[in-house]
């Protein structure tokens, strides 16, 4: 995840590397996400978040859709258990 000067710089950087566009947001939005994501990291009673708790933080900022799914959602209704325990960041 990188900071870029502008949309023009982003497009040029993606093209130079042959990468598809992933997801972008303003630095201000990322700061809101960072505050929610990292603010308890040094608490003495810190515990790992569950995937659902982490997903809820993303949801609160409108970061929804397939790109932001921490655990791939089985469209038949069951989560992929193999991915469920490798999500804490």
């Amino acid at each position, binding site marked *: *995840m990188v900071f870029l000067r502008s949309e023009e710089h982003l497009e040029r950087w993606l093209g130079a590397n042959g990468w598809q566009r992933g997801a972008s947001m303003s630095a*201000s939005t990322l*700061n809101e996400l960072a505050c929610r994501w990292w603010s308890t990291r040094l608490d003495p009673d*810190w515990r790992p978040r569950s995937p659902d708790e982490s997903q809820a933080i993303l949801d609160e900022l409108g970061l929804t859709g397939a790109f932001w799914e921490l655990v791939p959602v089985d469209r038949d209704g069951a989560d992929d258990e193999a991915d469920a325990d490798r999500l804490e960041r």
Partner: protein
Amino acid sequence: MDELDLRIRNHLYASFVRDATAVSVAEAADALELPAAVVADAYRRLHEAHALVLESEQLEIRMLNPFSAVATPHRVLAGGRGLFANCAWDALGIPAALHSDAAIESSCPDCGEQLDLEVRDGKLVRGTELLVHFVVPARRWWDDIAFT
């Protein structure tokens, strides 16, 4: 994550925040009065749990997210300390974790120019015009966390 691993994990974070350097297995074992083999096993479990990131095949800490134990293009000045972050998100995560104001120096990967950001009282007050891009979708973040 059991209480032993949490105790070791908390020691690693506290030491890093105090000294801006990651402690070795031997140093953590001495400080916590635990056998080095016990601490080494805990390092491996914490790595597997994504509570820290070790250099591949070694027991040296590379990341205590949001902190980086190695120099990166994302430098954060917070609480009188110079720290490195793993990425843009982590750069803003350091003031959030420290509950501190911060000045962040990064660079645009397109043009290479320095980018300056500032967080004050939890708000981004400089660099608000900048963009952030995520190449890797969330479910793949840990496939290669250094690239992510």
